[in-house]
């Protein structure tokens, strides 16, 4: 093991150790907050390790043989450490740590045993996500890919007594599995064509133009399907809004900052492979941009603060994917990192609001800025970053994405993304105005969140600003120059969105109801999520359930019927036959004598 490997291994091992400890030692797990402290301590060490790895700029690959075979192992496990995974390590450990600290207060009213369970899942999730980030090959990535999916399921269904949460958990699991089926098929096809799962081997082959496999576009498309499910791309995005049934910190960590970005990370990681198939890249860009726009329109009509943020996440994931599809994977990854920070901030701030007022409905909040100014400030910071206002983090990454898409001559996706930028500013400021300003609603005394929750909020807000300032000072570091008119355009779009939201929800100059009436068909569709959920439900009811009923009928009446007839016949025959057993010895002697007689006759007549 090289000296560069033990530190990443420590980062990976700490959450796993915490998970094992909590999973095995039941009294510790049931003690609640103490279990949380174990998990938080492990995450703090992991964060320190990740920061060291990042600052020192470790690069290297360490692998161990996993599936031995003649002529070298079929698959290896290991750690691939490079700038990409280093940055991701810091993001994952940082957001995990802050979310876990935040959860101590947010879930403080939970029963100790439930809280311990929560932290056990959290540790397992951190371990899985870090393993995914460090994976040096497709196979290890897939294993951890599924593990984060499992953790997502467990944490969405954390309040499993609630039917809605249980349903949402199952839905998230199912729909991401749809994509994962494509992912595993793609991986296996790629392996059977090249004989390796390792990224470095595959990249070398790609560079030597030794990857001229027939059907490579299909293979890469199948692999991309995994990202479609995980990163909530159209048409598999329907699970993410429902995943908001989980606790808010979970939404912040898994469904905004880390797990859902795994798809983007995978595409970024395997970019040399995707670069070989321009048609798939174009598809990725179009689907990404379309997802961004579609989700943004749905966010504009949503009244649940967490769902607005969820649609916003889907929308921003679309941004990242569009960038990756346009060949600007770096821009997409930058947006992933900055988005991870400010979206976690937004979710945690929304959590603080929900904690204070006890509802998710923004129209039952209002005027909260006076009651909770600190939360209000950080929420506005997050909103500005998401809307793309300089010099906050989101501005630069969003501009890099737009520039990358423009450079790739993808006019259609570029226009969709530009429109999305406008809508993003609009729906976020809509939430801000309705929730924090506007008329206060009677009932309840909203209060500022405890410092355990405020601390992470302030830290994330500070980081959002700091990263933005740093990007402003040193430049986004993109490979190509963006057109000069791009920055004014994106600022203009954000300002237009802000102005529209202000006019509609703060000033009251434009009546939202009349706008909705004016755009009635769009409003109708967006409120019904473009009928996709209904479509899936319909497909499920009409197709899968009907098919299952048919199978059930065949099993019950045809298969079981044949068996029932056979058993009835056997029983009857047995009933008849048993009567020849009279139990009287003389009857048997009759039988023997008659048999002997027959034998004699047979011998006399035929055995000449």
């Amino acid at each position, binding site marked *: 093991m090289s000296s560069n490997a033990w530190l990443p291994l420590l980062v990976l091992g700490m959450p796993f150790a915490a998970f094992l400890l909590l999973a095995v030692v039941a009294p510790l797990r049931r003690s609640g907050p103490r279990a949380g402290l174990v998990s938080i301590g492990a995450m703090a060490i992991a964060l320190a390790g990740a920061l060291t790895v990042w600052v020192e700029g470790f690069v290297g690959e360490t692998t161990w043989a996993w599936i031995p075979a003649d002529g070298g192992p079929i698959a290896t496990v290991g750690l691939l450490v490079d700038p990409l995974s280093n940055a991701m390590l810091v993001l994952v450990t940082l957001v995990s740590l802050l979310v876990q600290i935040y959860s101590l207060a947010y879930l403080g009213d939970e029963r100790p045993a439930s809280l311990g369970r929560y932290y056990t899942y959290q540790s397992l999730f951190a371990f899985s996500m870090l393993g995914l980030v460090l994976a040096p090959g497709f196979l290890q990535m897939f294993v951890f890919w599924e593990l984060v999916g499992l953790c997502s399921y467990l944490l969405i269904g954390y309040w499993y007594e609630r039917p809605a949460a249980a349903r949402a958990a199952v839905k998230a699991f199912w729909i991401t599995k749809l994509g994962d089926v494509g992912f595993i098929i793609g991986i296996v096809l790629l392996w059977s064509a090249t004989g390796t799962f390792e990224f470095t081997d595959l990249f070398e082959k790609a560079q030597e133009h030794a990857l001229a496999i027939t059907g490579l576009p299909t293979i890469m498309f199948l692999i991309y399907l995994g990202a479609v499910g995980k990163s909530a791309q159209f048409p598999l995005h329907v699970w993410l809004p429902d995943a908001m049934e989980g606790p808010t910190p979970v939404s912040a960590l898994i469904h905004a900052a880390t797990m859902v970005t795994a798809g983007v990370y995978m595409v970024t990681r395997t970019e040399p492979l995707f670069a070989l198939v321009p048609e798939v890249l174009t598809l990725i860009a179009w689907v990404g941009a379309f997802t961004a726009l579609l989700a943004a329109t749905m966010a504009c009509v949503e009244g649940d603060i967490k769902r607005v943020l969820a649609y916003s996440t889907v929308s921003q994931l679309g941004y990242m994917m569009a960038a990756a599809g346009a060949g600007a994977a770096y821009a997409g990854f930058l947006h992933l990192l900055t988005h991870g920070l400010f979206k976690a901030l937004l979710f945690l701030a929304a959590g603080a609001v929900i904690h204070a007022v006890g509802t998710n409905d923004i129209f039952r909040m209002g005027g909260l800025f006076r009651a909770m100014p600190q939360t209000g400030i950080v929420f506005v910071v997050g909103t500005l970053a998401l809307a793309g206002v300089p010099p906050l983090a989101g501005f630069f990454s969003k501009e890099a994405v737009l520039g990358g898409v423009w450079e790739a001559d993808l006019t259609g996706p570029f226009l969709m993304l530009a429109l999305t930028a406008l809508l993003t500013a609009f729906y976020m400021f809509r939430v801000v105005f309705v929730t924090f300003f506007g008329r206060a609603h009677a009932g309840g005394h909203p209060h500022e969140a405890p410092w355990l929750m405020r601390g992470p909020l302030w830290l994330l807000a500070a980081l959002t600003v700091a990263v933005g300032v740093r990007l402003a000072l040193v430049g986004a570091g993109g490979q190509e120059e963006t057109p000069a008119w791009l920055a004014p355009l994106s600022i203009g779009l954000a300002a237009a969105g802000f102005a529209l939201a202000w006019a509609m929800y703060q000033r009251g100059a434009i009546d939202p109801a009349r706008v909705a009436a004016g755009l009635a068909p769009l409003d109708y569709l967006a409120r019904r999520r473009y009928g996709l959920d209904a479509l899936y439900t319909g497909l499920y009811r009409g197709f899968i359930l009907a098919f299952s009923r048919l199978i059930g009928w065949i099993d019950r009446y045809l298969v079981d019927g044949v068996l029932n007839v056979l058993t009835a016949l056997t029983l009857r025959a047995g009933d008849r036959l*048993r009567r020849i057993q009279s139990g009287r010895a*003389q009857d048997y002697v009759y039988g023997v004598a008659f048999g002997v007689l027959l034998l004699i006759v047979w011998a006399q007549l035929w055995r000449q």
Partner: protein
Amino acid sequence: MMGLPAYLVLGALVFSIGLFGVLTRRNAVGILLGIELMLNAVNINLVAFARFNGDLTGLVFTLFTISITVAEVAVGLAIVIAIFRVRRTVEADRLDLLRG
């Protein structure tokens, strides 16, 4: 001087009478008697063959058969008495515990 067939016919007759007794007697003791007749029909055959073939093996075999028959009758009668003690009857038709 009668030939071998006469002895064999006698044996067959005795055997048939014995079989008839075994099949038709309702009394367990009667059935045992029938079995005795069948065994002795065999003995007649053995002795006859020994006599006409000049082979002593048949005679020796017959002695064995007689002694084993004695043992068999002793066991058989003991079983009949045991059954009688339990069921108060030795009528074969009513001893049908093995009926299916």
